[in-house]
């Protein structure tokens, strides 16, 4: 009779260990001491997998047993490997680096080479050139979508303490296309609009003003100051330092320059404040910290200020014009997100 049919008739967990050896002894020809070993090795005909057992409880049991077996084997190999390494001592081969999505990243051909003259010229003469040549200093206007709720309002206030020389204005249902010429005439260099949906901020539009590019981001994981654990006191008026991490491609460079042009040129190191834009896997993490050097090598940091995560949706050439503007880069999920190891920033 079929092995599985027989075990189904018995059906319960209690006599499992006792049953297997009996059945094994009855059915199997060759395996003599299979009762002492793991039952699965002896009991089943070849080509049988646990998922073919129809009874859910029994199937679950067989699976947990298999899993325990696997874990034991894994631990055993690990121990063996460790012993071998200790035995070899210095001659042991270096530990293999685990594969992560970041180090398996597909090489992006648009990665900027620092020695490339053409790209250097392109960057030196782009819309941010006037900031990087110290001809203009930033003046930011922060506003929201119409009728913002409390979280968004508080985020705007906190952002204006983080970014020096910034002003928050209430958006009285005005069209952005009308606001922008007024900002230009009042010498604003950047416009930040925080979009809100269902009482939480979820989008950020950053537009460089005279005629510069407009970036549209999705914003998530917004934490206001009071929601940050172990935070420091409120930030002071000192100009913070900026850290831009991991913006490697040409698009990343443009976005990095856009963030850099929000802050005044000369940071005041007395303030010991630093704003970080860290790009990892196309998500940009914004953090604001105060640091203190306890010794030559040790730094203590306190997180102040809001924190949020941004993901770039589109970069449009020219000031805000979502219908008729020309886009330099648009995120297309069905074309660009097919590969888990390909990133664009």
């Amino acid at each position, binding site marked *: 009779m079929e092995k599985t049919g027989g075990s189904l008739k018995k059906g319960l967990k209690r006599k499992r260990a006792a049953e297997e050896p009996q059945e094994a002894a009855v059915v199997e020809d060759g395996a003599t001491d299979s009762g002492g070993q793991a039952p699965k090795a002896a009991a089943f005909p070849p080509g049988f997998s646990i998922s073919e057992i129809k009874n859910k409880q029994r199937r679950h049991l067989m699976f947990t047993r298999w899993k325990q077996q696997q874990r034991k084997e894994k631990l055993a190999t690990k121990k063996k490997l460790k012993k071998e390494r200790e035995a070899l001592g210095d001659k042991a081969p270096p530990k293999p680096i685990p594969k992560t999505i970041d180090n398996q990243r597909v090489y992006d051909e648009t990665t900027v080479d620092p020695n490339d003259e*053409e790209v250097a010229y392109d960057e030196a003469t782009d819309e941010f050139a006037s900031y990087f040549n110290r001809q203009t200093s930033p003046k930011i206007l922060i506003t929201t979508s119409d009728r913002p709720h409390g979280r968004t309002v508080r985020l705007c206030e906190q952002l204006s303490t983080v970014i020096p020389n910034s002003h928050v204005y209430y958006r009285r249902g005005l069209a952005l296309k009308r606001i922008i010429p007024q900002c230009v005439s009042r010498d604003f260099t950047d416009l930040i609009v925080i979009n809100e949906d269902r009482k939480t901020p979820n989008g950020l539009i950053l537009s460089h003003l005279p005629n510069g590019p407009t970036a549209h981001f999705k914003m998530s994981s917004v934490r206001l100051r009071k929601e940050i654990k172990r935070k420091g006191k409120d930030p002071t008026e000192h100009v913070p330092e900026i850290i831009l991490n991991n913006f490697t491609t040409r698009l990343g460079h443009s976005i990095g320059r856009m963030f850099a042009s929000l802050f005044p040129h000369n940071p005041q190191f007395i303030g010991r404040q630093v704003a970080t834009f860290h790009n990892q896997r196309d998500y940009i993490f914004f953090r604001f910290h105060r640091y203190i050097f306890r010794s030559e090598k040790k730094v203590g940091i306190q997180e102040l200020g809001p924190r949020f995560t941004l993901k770039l949706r589109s970069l449009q050439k020219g000031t805000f014009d979502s219908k008729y503007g020309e886009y330099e880069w*648009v995120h297309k999920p069905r074309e*660009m997100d097919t590969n888990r190891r390909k990133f664009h920033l």
Partner: protein
Amino acid sequence: MAAAGARWNHVWVGTETGILKGVNLQRKQAANFTAAGQPRREEAVSALCWGAGGETQILMGCADRTVRRFCTEEGRFQGQRHCPGGEGTFRGLAQVDGTLITCVDSGILRVWRDNDKETSSDPLLELRVGPGVCRMRQDPAHPHVVATGGKENALKVWDLQGSEEPVFRAKNVRNDWLDLRVPIWDQDIQFLPESQKLVTCTGYHQVRVYDPASPQRRPVLEATYGEYPLTAMTLTPDGNSVIVGNTHGQLAEIDLRQGRLLGCLKGLAGSVRGLQCHPSKPLLASCGLDRILRVHRIRNPRGLEHKVYLKSQLNCLLVSGRENWEDEPQEPQEPSQLSSEDTEADELWASLEAAAKRKLPDLEQTSGAFQTRRRKKKRPGSTSP
């Protein structure tokens, strides 16, 4: 050596930084050519067209209102001429019978005598086409006929040998269902072969066909695609459909017999600035603000063939119409190359030596022109490896 191999380039692209790039898809190389040796944003290329004499010369219209002549045989710039008058950049460039036709943004269309001796002389003919011109296109079958169109500037067809009035002036479509005037924004124009018809694509995502031969001045056919302004358009080799691109980087093929969408092409991430099909092969070259030149195959099967990253924003392109893209010699002929007479080993050493020698003459030649050659990645065409 890049200069010597310039004649074999398949696609010529003009950039916002003033560099003319010649791309050889067979060898997967791109070469930069600048007139002054350095890229300059004031010389941003806004229009490209073939010069006289087959495809040996390229005329490049720059943002500083000069038209430069580039010789593909020799790989260097030969001369320039300043074309003043009106404001804005060039929206169209054409040449016929030793004369040069230019049209600028503010609507001044001028015909210049094309000789190198007189760098700036008075134009032979001047027409005022109306402000806000977005494109001026020459009819390949009748070189004296040009069409212009733009924002709030309806399509007009001009005969340069005829009178000062347009031969055909298009009429706007009827008011829409709310009885509002439909705005006009003709972004690109093409002449259909073997008939008098014209196709335009508009900034309000419409594709329209006009027929001057028919009594109606309104469009004969209208099709819409997408929600974003269409910026560039090209005819396919069979003449029955057009491929349009919009500001989001979407490319679509639209059949002109029925006004139907035939299919889309994927890959572009930025606004499409230049599109051109090869006259006989089913290949389409597209360039845009995402700094990448892509060559797609339009049918059997539809997909990406080549992708080349060119580091500046691309404004316009020209596709070489020659047939033998694959048959050219793999290595350029150098005078000092060993003749491959004796054995295969000798040939192998010769090709290796030629590759080594190619690096050194490159450095010597950079005194004259700003040229770099990068070996592009050996992956033809796959966007997601």
